[in-house]
């Protein structure tokens, strides 16, 4: 039991940067490039942690606190996340609300730190981030509500636990719709194409990257690590929802889970390679579409 808890914590803390590496490698291969090493994100983190930081004269303590609060909030949300269908370190009825609001806390302080610089570019990024997030949030909650109705549980560990396999047998159309919706939310929340382009070079078109332009050194490392952890959290939700089988052995489940996460990263990379970025005015429509899919799923379950 304790061993498994440590294993889960280890996964949460060590695996996330690898996902970024996989996404970038898939994108590079599909574009015919060699691309950075799969472990590049780890090297970047190590480099950034050794460096010093420069702060703008405009900024206050909010700018310095933003990255730390963001990372702490995302890591705390990770504590509520069930890994591979096993209960999370902490689990209680309604913990998914805390999960979602911890991510909102991270976003709140990242956006405030962006506004703290007084740069209009960063203000623009912050405005886009909070606007799109407010449309992604209902879609995410609707996914959770669908899961709650299908499994009869109100905690993340319950929704994604052993009750998921029978739920797939009884309510597969609803869960499928919810999974699609969750994937769209994942792309939006993690600033991936088609919502945001993490490798763009034009500040005017950025969302997440432009908010963190002025951060440097360990603060930037916190942000990078936090972003990869957030991708891991959403990936873990999605993978467990899609691969909701019942396993006989815990370790087999963990192995399938890690394999699924890597496949998820490859799927994100594939999406990024085959799609162009949407115009900013189209993004809300896509997110509302995701909410509508989940509402359909809910209606299927409630009728």
């Amino acid at each position, binding site marked *: 039991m304790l061993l498994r808890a440590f294993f889960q914590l280890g996964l949460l803390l060590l695996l996330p940067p690898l996902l970024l590496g996989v996404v970038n490698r898939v994108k590079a291969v599909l574009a015919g490039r060699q691309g950075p090493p799969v472990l590049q994100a780890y090297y970047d983190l190590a480099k950034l942690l050794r460096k010093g930081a420069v702060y703008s004269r405009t900024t206050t303590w909010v700018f310095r606190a933003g990255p730390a609060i963001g990372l702490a909030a995302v890591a705390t949300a990770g504590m509520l996340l069930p890994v591979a269908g096993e209960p999370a370190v902490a689990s209680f009825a309604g913990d998914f609300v805390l999960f979602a609001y911890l991510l909102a806390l991270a976003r709140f302080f990242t956006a405030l730190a962006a506004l703290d610089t007084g740069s209009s570019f960063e203000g623009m990024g912050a405005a886009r981030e909070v606007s799109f997030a407010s449309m992604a949030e*209902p879609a995410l909650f609707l996914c959770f509500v669908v899961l709650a109705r299908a499994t009869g549980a109100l905690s993340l560990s319950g929704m994604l636990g052993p009750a998921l396999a029978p739920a797939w047998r009884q309510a597969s159309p609803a869960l499928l719709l919810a999974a699609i919706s969750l994937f769209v939310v994942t792309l939006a929340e993690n600033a991936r194409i088609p919502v945001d382009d993490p490798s763009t070079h034009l500040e005017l078109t950025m969302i997440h990257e432009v908010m963190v332009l002025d951060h440097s050194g360990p603060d930037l490392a916190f942000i990078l690590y936090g972003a990869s952890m957030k991708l891991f959290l959403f990936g873990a939700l999605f993978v467990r929802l899609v691969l909701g089988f019942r396993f006989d052995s815990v370790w087999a489940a963990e192995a399938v889970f890690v394999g699924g996460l890597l496949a998820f990263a490859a799927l994100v990379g594939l999406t990024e390679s085959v799609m162009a970025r949407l115009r900013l005015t189209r993004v809300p429509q896509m997110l509302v579409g995701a909410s509508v899919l989940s509402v359909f799923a809910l209606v299927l379950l409630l009728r």
Partner: protein
Amino acid sequence: MTAALAIGAVALASASGVLGAALRRRPALGQRLSCAVLCTASALGIAAAVPALAGGGGFEIRQAWQEPFASLSLRLDPLSALFLIPVLAVPALGSIYGVAYWPQEKLGARAVRLQIFYGLVTGAMAMVVLADNAMLFLFGWEVMAVCAFLLVLSDPDRADAQRAAWVYLAAAHVGTFALFGFFSVVGSARGSFDFAAWQGLPAAGAAGGGLFALLLVGFGLKAGLVPLHFWLPGAHAAAPSHVSAVMSGVLLKTGIYGLLRTTGFFEAPPLAWGMVLLALGAVSAALGVGLALAQHDLKRLLAYHSVENIGIITMGVGIALVGRARGEPALVLLGFAGAALHVVNHALFKSLLFFGAGSVLHATGTRDIERLGGLAKVMPWTASLFLVGAAAISGLPPLNGFVSEWLVVLGSLRALDLPRADRAAFAVLAAPTLALVGALAAACFVKVQGVVFLGNPRSDDVARARESPREMLLPMAVLAAACLAIGLAPGLLLPSLTRGAASWAGLSTDALAAPASAAGASATGVSLGAAVLLAALGLLVVLRRRLGLLRGTAPRSDTWGCGYAHPSARMEYTASSFAQILVQGFRFALLPRVELQPPRGLFPGFARFATSVPDAVLDLAILPAVRAYGVAAGWVRGRLAGRIHFYAVLVLATLVALLAWRLLWW
């Protein structure tokens, strides 16, 4: 004993302003003394309320009164006690704030007048939550409304205050009129105007529906439910900030109290009541936060957030009513606990925010957030305390706003336990609605905090700003500490909330024991999450220190301007641009107005662009209707004035019509 404490609190609070008037020669002393009296009154009242919440110590008093139908009946039960605490605590903190914000030394008679009505409104609110007789309730209600009207007029010469005050007075009296209707119908049916005789009213049928509609109008107008919120933004923006804090923080809640108290009289309220409240609450919450996003006036923006939070509270009440209709104690408990805790929480963080807005106004002389910026450097304490309030109202953990919103979401999810094909299960849609509202509120407060306190100053108004005096910071610090405490240990409040729910729904606490212990276990989880969050944050802060990021030693530079060498404050992102995506996205509901005179020709001269978002109800419906009525009446007056024979014809026509009706149909 508790009765003496509570009555003493009402009397002392009502009379507290008199000292300021008596000691006109020594204004500073007079104001401090009346502040001390109000704080004492508040302490007495809270001392009476706490034991009632802890499971004992309520009281009931009945005395005859010579007014018709009235009796001096007071009652303190857990529901009253829940409201009594914020109703007394917020005005007491506000009066401390007022010592520096609205000093009698400088303002003289205006401050004396404010002090008198401020004390009186506090006493009246306490009276409303304690009253156990309809006439006594209405007496307190009316004193409260008139005092609030006079408080909005604290600056009697300002045109916006005059307009807001009159709109408020008219709205308040329409509401009171509806309550007169409700109380007289029920009172004459029951033969007594004591609330004690009103238990077990039948809720079924058209009669029950009619009574519920009267309640919705009467209490909805006071609470500010959309579409009856129209008086609220103007009145709360025009009043002095510590008065706004009382009006927004607690005076609105008397409407919620009334709704809870009166729905408690009914036996088995039908499902429709709960669903109607849920829908109204959802519309209020979403429209309130949407309209708030579009405001540039700091206090008006906060006032619209009150509409949003009243919506959240109403959704909680709706869920509790759905639970009563379906006999689900879990829904009753979670809905009621979420609503009641949000009443307290909103009182805490909204008064904190209004105090902060007042400090900004005091320091810069403007409420227009487009003219502010960078205040965190000159007002670090105000900025940090405002940030706590902003995070709390956005429902972010580990603060109190999260806890109550979480309880309401959890309550709505319990509707999933209902059997298949039960319409009541659609109450679960409250959860995504709350997610939308919470995210929009967070967007709005990123805007406020970022534009007002962070970045560079946008105008010279900021240059002369100074940090507020201690008298203004202390109440804010107390409120911020309370926000954090409730967020960290919500489980401690659950037993009191359970008692409140039981007394409201007419259930025994045993019936609620199972859901209460489940909620308690979840609340422990929330506390654990908050603790882990703070521990992780502490670790990261230590790590930053170890990595050499010490305060002040890191090199400083200019903000990266993306290659541009001389960015100025005029190029900063503004509040309107920040909100533009969302205001455009929700333009079907917010109806923004755009005035555009684009630059024309090869040598463009004058160009202008302005956007504003009017209040959908007041500016687009009520005022045009009133104006059209005025024009029509003027037309009729112009046609008929002075022709006596035509009046005679009208009188005859009316008489004939009445006779015909009497003879043919009656």
